[in-house]
Structures are given as C-alpha cells and as structure tokens.
C-alpha cells in the first residue's frame, strides 16, 4: 500500500469483522521509529489460526484464496528493518479478556518506509462504515522539532451526541475537523 493508513484501514476491518466492540488504533512516533498498534476486544484467534495469519495463503474469507492484510503490513515493516507481531486470545480461552493485538514497528529513516498518509480520512472512513462499534485513536509524535498529541474516542463522542448516529454527515465532518485541529492547532473561523 502506498500509505500506512490504508494498512490501518485493512487491519481494523478485520477487528470489526471479529465482532470487536472497541478497537484502538495507536500511532507512536519517537526518534526514528513509528510504532503502530491495533488492538481489539473481538473474538480473537486460536493458536492454530494465529500461526497462519502472516502466511499470505491463509484467509478467513471464503471468496479468495489468500488474505493479504497482515502479510503486507509485515512486509512493509520488515522492509524498513522493523517487525510485526500478532497476539491473540479467544473468547473461549478468556471470556473476560479476549481479542487481538497487532503491533508493527517501522524505521522512518529507511528509504523503503511507507509514509503514514491521511490517517484522519482513515479514521473517518472507519467510523462512517461502522457507526455502532467504538474506536479509540491516539497519535503521539515526540520529536525534537515536533510534539503532537491527537486523541479521539467515539465512546465520549457518543455520550455527547445522545442518540444521534455517528455516521451522520455533520458528525463525521465534525470529527474530521476535530482531528485536523489537533494536528494543526485551532483555526479562526468566521
């Protein structure tokens, strides 16, 4: 993928399909690394399934022979000298604490590093497509020339909205502006 945000979209869709009520998307940029963590409380995967997830010929979909989301994320991370790990616990194994955690580390100074891209659009697309599940997004940048913290939690937004669906156009627009403002600082409006 030309942007990591497209990988994020792909992996998070898996979380939603696994029945996750909450999916957290964490991006941590520090020094010369970018760490991406996608963690959900969905149904989780058995050890056997887990072993196969980075094999491109493994898939949970019946319509195609290979599932490429995790193999491509792993490749993108490894191309920069980084890594990807996947941990998972099934609901059967632990009814109180189940789900999947994908962690990928990228070295941003590698020539093969894929830029993060438009992560705000990705978050908005996810909320629009899945208004009934919750997403927590946090992007931290700790660099000598840049110190940014962007945060969004649909559970909080949902509380304020008091029944208005999250995929209403005005709501999505507001979330988009809310995120963009945290990146750039507030703008004066007329």
């Amino acid at each position: 993928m030309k942007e990591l945000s497209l990988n994020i979209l792909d992996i998070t869709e898996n979380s939603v399909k696994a029945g996750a009520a909450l999916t957290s998307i964490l991006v941590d940029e520090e020094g010369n690394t970018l760490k991406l963590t996608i963690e959900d409380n969905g149904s989780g995967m058995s050890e056997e399934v887990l072993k196969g997830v980075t094999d491109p010929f493994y898939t949970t979909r019946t319509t195609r022979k290979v599932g490429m989301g995790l193999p491509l994320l792993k490749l993108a991370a490894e191309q920069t000298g980084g890594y990807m790990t996947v941990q998972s616990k099934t609901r059967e194994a632990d009814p109180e604490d189940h789900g999947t955690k994908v962690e990928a580390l990228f070295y941003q100074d590698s020539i093969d590093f894929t830029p993060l891209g438009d992560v705000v659009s990705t978050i908005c697309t996810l909320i629009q497509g899945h208004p009934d599940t919750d997403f927590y997004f946090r992007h931290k940048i700790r660099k000598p020339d840049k110190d940014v913290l962007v945060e969004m939690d649909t559970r909080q937004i949902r509380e304020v909205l008091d029944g208005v669906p999250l995929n209403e156009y005005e709501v999505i627009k507001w979330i988009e502006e809310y995120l963009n403002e945290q990146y750039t600082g507030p703008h004066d409006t007329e």
Partner: protein
Amino acid sequence: MKVSDLLNNGFLEITLPDGDREIDGVYIGDLLSWVMGRASQDNAWITIMSNINVIAVATLADTACVILAEDVDLPEDVKAQAEIKDINVLKSPLPIYETAVRLHELLS
C-alpha cells in the same frame, strides 16, 4: 505466446509448473498491494520483489507468469510455494525496462 517459449529467448526458468500458459500483455510493478488490484489475468508480471507475497499476488491476479528482472533469485521456500500454487516464475538478467522491451519484441 506461451510462457515456455520465453526460455529460448533470453529468459531463464526458475520454476515452470504451467509452461503452456499463454501470455496476454505485460504488467510492471513492485508495490504488491498496487499490483494486486491492477495486473490483469494472463499478464506477464515483471518485478524485482521475490518474497512469498509475490506468489500470493500472482495467484490473486491470475497472471501468466512472474518475471524477476536484474537476475533476482527466488528463495527456496518461495520457489516451493510457487510450484504448489502452479505459478510460473522466470528470470531475466536485464533491468526492468530492457526486460519489458525484450518482451514487447517477442509478443508483437
């Protein structure tokens, strides 16, 4: 033109489980997710990538063969997977552009 016909024309066999397959057109690309959505069925796909995901993308896009340019080799485990999945893989000592030009001459 069949994939196996390339062998006497400057291309070397890595594995050819389905050599009788006809080639229709050429696609070039190294960003696998991009190639996955754009390479057409029966294309000869030229790339310098050689990991296991290449075989998966060739399976999904149903290309006629993968051609590794610049004398890139296929790791043994990837070659084994290509054989299992009936994916033809050849290689060319030429850079990508010259490989494509050579294919163009042969296909037209």
